[in-house]
């Protein structure tokens, strides 16, 4: 608690420590990104509304995952990455904050489930212990697992190793783990691509249930999934944002012809 307040006064950013955090909006202002000489993102301008589920769709290699990893500053781990432009989290630039603090507010679920080789309970509590917050661990574990619809399945096996779960359960565990630190934004990078249909359905139900609590940005290859779960859809092609609007509008009556071609399946 004290540590967070001290960070806060150093950076001047208002980071609330309240467990009931409000979801935040994310704005991208002319974001450009190069890896070495290849320009991956060519000037993206958009706003992800607070509390809603936004999907980013597009063919392979158009920069969706790179865009997502910019938001929590994981793309900068590669040494040849150069970024221009700005990303605002609730009107504050994320480049002015310590990346660590940023990542406590912006959580991420990866494409392949990657639970730590520890017990289920330790996986959930990892983020909290890493950031030094004092919370009631039982309550946190129960809340997170309930939000990910795992509490009934796992409440009797909290001390088992996380590697003994099935792939679908592992991915939902990763989701619960990222929710345990109470972020305001959750980024999901093709979360269901490694899962079978039943686990996918369970995961999607959890995502939809968290609609007003967190801002969720889902990158997906699967257009049907985007249609099922999201409020807003962004279509990206070759590093540019082609169209951004409500789900129904994009899928039934898109403005741009490129969007229409992609939806029909003329290219993919």
């Amino acid at each position, binding site marked *: 608690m004290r540590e967070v307040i001290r960070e806060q006064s*150093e*950076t001047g950013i208002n980071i609330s420590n309240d467990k009931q955090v409000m979801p935040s909006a994310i704005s991208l*202002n*002319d974001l450009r990104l190069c890896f070495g000489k290849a320009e991956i993102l060519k000037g993206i301008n958009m706003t992800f509304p607070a509390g809603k589920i936004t999907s980013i769709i597009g063919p392979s290699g158009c920069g969706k995952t790179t865009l997502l990893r910019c938001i929590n*500053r994981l793309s*900068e781990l590669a*040494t040849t*990455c*150069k*970024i*221009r*432009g*700005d990303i*605002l989290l609730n*009107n504050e*630039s994320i*480049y*002015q*904050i*310590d*990346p660590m603090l940023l990542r406590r507010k912006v959580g991420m679920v990866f494409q392949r489930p990657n639970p730590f080789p520890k017990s289920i309970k330790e996986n959930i509590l990892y983020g909290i212990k890493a950031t030094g917050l004092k919370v009631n661990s039982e309550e946190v574990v129960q809340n997170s697992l309930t939000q990910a619809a795992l509490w009934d399945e796992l409440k009797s096996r909290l001390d088992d190793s996380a590697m003994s779960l099935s792939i679908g359960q592992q991915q939902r565990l990763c989701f619960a783990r990222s929710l345990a630190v109470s972020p305001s934004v959750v980024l999901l990078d093709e979360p269901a691509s490694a899962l079978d249909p039943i686990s996918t359905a369970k995961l999607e139900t959890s995502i939809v249930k968290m609609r007003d609590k967190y801002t969720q940005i889902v990158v997906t290859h699967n257009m049907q999934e985007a249609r099922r779960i999201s409020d807003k859809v962004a279509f990206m092609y070759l590093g540019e944002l082609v169209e951004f609007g409500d789900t129904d509008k994009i899928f039934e009556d898109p403005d741009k012809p490129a969007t229409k071609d992609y939806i029909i399946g003329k290219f993919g």
Partner: protein
Amino acid sequence: MTTKLNFKPLKLLTPPSPRRLIKSWPKVLCFILAIIPLIMLCFVIVNLVVHTGPVFRQPSYDVNHDGIINNKDYVGLKGIFSTKISTALTGNKGQYGLIPAIWGTILLVIVAMGIATPVALLMAIFSSEFTLGFLGRGMRTLLGVLSGIPPIIYALMWIVIFTAIIAPNFRPDGLNPPAGMTWWFSPPPNSTLIGGIMLSLLIIPFLAPLFDDAIKNVPNSFKEASLGLGATRWYTLINVTLPAAFSGLLSGLRLGVLKAMGDVIIVTATIAVETNIPNPFFDILRPIAPLTATGVGLAGGFSQSMIDPLGYAVANVAAILLVIMAFAIIILETLLQRKFKKRFSHDGR
């Protein structure tokens, strides 16, 4: 509110503070710990170089074969690279040529690696490709167990191997001349051959797991492609797997050669400090002491009371020669790796 569009480098703007520096203590600690081996290495090399001083400064003398003493100013490089040498235990003093020692090292390494490399390669092939069920895995554990035997044991038991393998083949039956022969001569028991054999026994359990890993690292797709075309396993092994494993095999070979070159105990005990070049210079049935054994002899042998300061300095020269040879082997191996990388590489890089 938008910020200025400027070019942002990788490690972005977090305000520096004393708190940050204190937080990075693990990195500083690891840096300090990591520097220590570097300091040790520099200390060893500097120490060796410094102690070779007397070679270039101390007045010495020279005895030629008539027993006449010549006074010389110092031994110098010319003296080092001559071919006569004497230690505290042999007769005439004053000769400090190291050429026999260098040649001894080369000969010994050739003999030892010549025996060890094929055997280790076959063991690796046996445990990775041509396994007989559990025997292949058992070979790996057996090699692990054998690699734990310290070299002093081989030095202790060399007589056993000598009487078992060498003596029947290179000596007449028993130690007496055979009937009817009035003259005979046979190899002494401390020949380079026996030193090479004991050294190869030390190296085989060390080399075989390295070769085994190199062969196992070849991707399965190569072997499957070859077998799918109808080739036999042996053909696949020779023409596909071994070339693809070339870089791993070469680096294992380098480690083996370095170990053979640097080993002191086995050669000191088996070849002792015999120091003349045998008559055909490649005669492995006569002894010729490598650099390590010569160095031990010069540094006083087995007791500190017999240390001759000039001999001690020459021992340092021997050690430096060993260091130079070791680096030469490493550089040679790096060059070879680069040359054959395109031809044999399976990474596509």
